């Protein structure tokens, strides 16, 4: 099961990717809570691509149900200036109460909500690859 979406930068386009997550997640037998976690992570990855990617993005979703632990793998690709994944420009997790900025939570949420996350980024290509197992670890 594979889906590839070429998404333009239009309002709420991230929900198109979230809808695809919902459809493939359900087909894999993923429960609603895990589907919603993936949806929020994908929405954040798309918002980062919209904000920093400099144009349209590609979202690839692949359901792997032939493995010992079935999982949903998602890639979000943009073609912006790139960044250092170990030192993102804004890190929301360092935020203190009452202080700005309140932005910059995307990568933190993605890492917390997904089971595995890999980020490759350089000038002209940023690829966020993330996966969620259909069931939590035994």
């Amino acid at each position, binding site marked *: 099961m594979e889906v590839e979406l070429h998404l333009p930068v239009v309002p*709420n386009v*991230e*929900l198109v990717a*979230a*809808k695809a997550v*919902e459809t493939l997640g359900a087909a894999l037998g993923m429960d609603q*809570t895990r589907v*919603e*976690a993936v*949806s*929020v992570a994908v*929405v*954040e990855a798309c*918002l980062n691509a919209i904000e920093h990617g400099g144009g349209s993005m590609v979202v690839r979703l692949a359901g792997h149900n032939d493995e010992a632990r079935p999982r949903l793998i998602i890639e979000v690709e943009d073609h912006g200036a790139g960044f250092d994944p170990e030192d993102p420009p804004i890190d*929301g*997790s360092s*935020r203190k*109460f*009452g202080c700005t900025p*309140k*932005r910059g*939570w*995307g990568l*933190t*949420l993605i890492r*917390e*909500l997904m089971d595995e996350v890999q980020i490759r980024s350089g000038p002209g290509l940023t690829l966020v690859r993330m996966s969620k197992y259909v069931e939590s670890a035994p």
Partner: protein
Amino acid sequence: MSNETIKLSADVLGDGVGVISAAGYINNEGGQAIADAAQGLLGRGVRTLLIDLDGTRIINSIGVSILLEIMEKLLEDNGRLAFCNLTPTIAKTFEIMGLVQYASIFPDRRTARSQLGVDVPS
């Protein structure tokens, strides 16, 4: 998936307690709509605000950041913010973003009303 357009209702429950029901996608527009409704309730003397997210399944960090601003405004006015009917993912997102450190989380509207001191009809 939640509708793109958020559906809101706002009421004063009495004794300085107000409730906003929000169903839909909490993004920048949804968050701002909640903030506007909250501002209206604060203008009516509300200092304890309950946000009921029954019907909200997906949020983003921009929308939650606006909820953080509502919370900061309430705390500056010695108020209190509470939420009920959160999905597990929304609850986890609030936890990651630090909202639960300063806001109360209740499983449902009835429990929230009881704990906030609003009479619950029998």
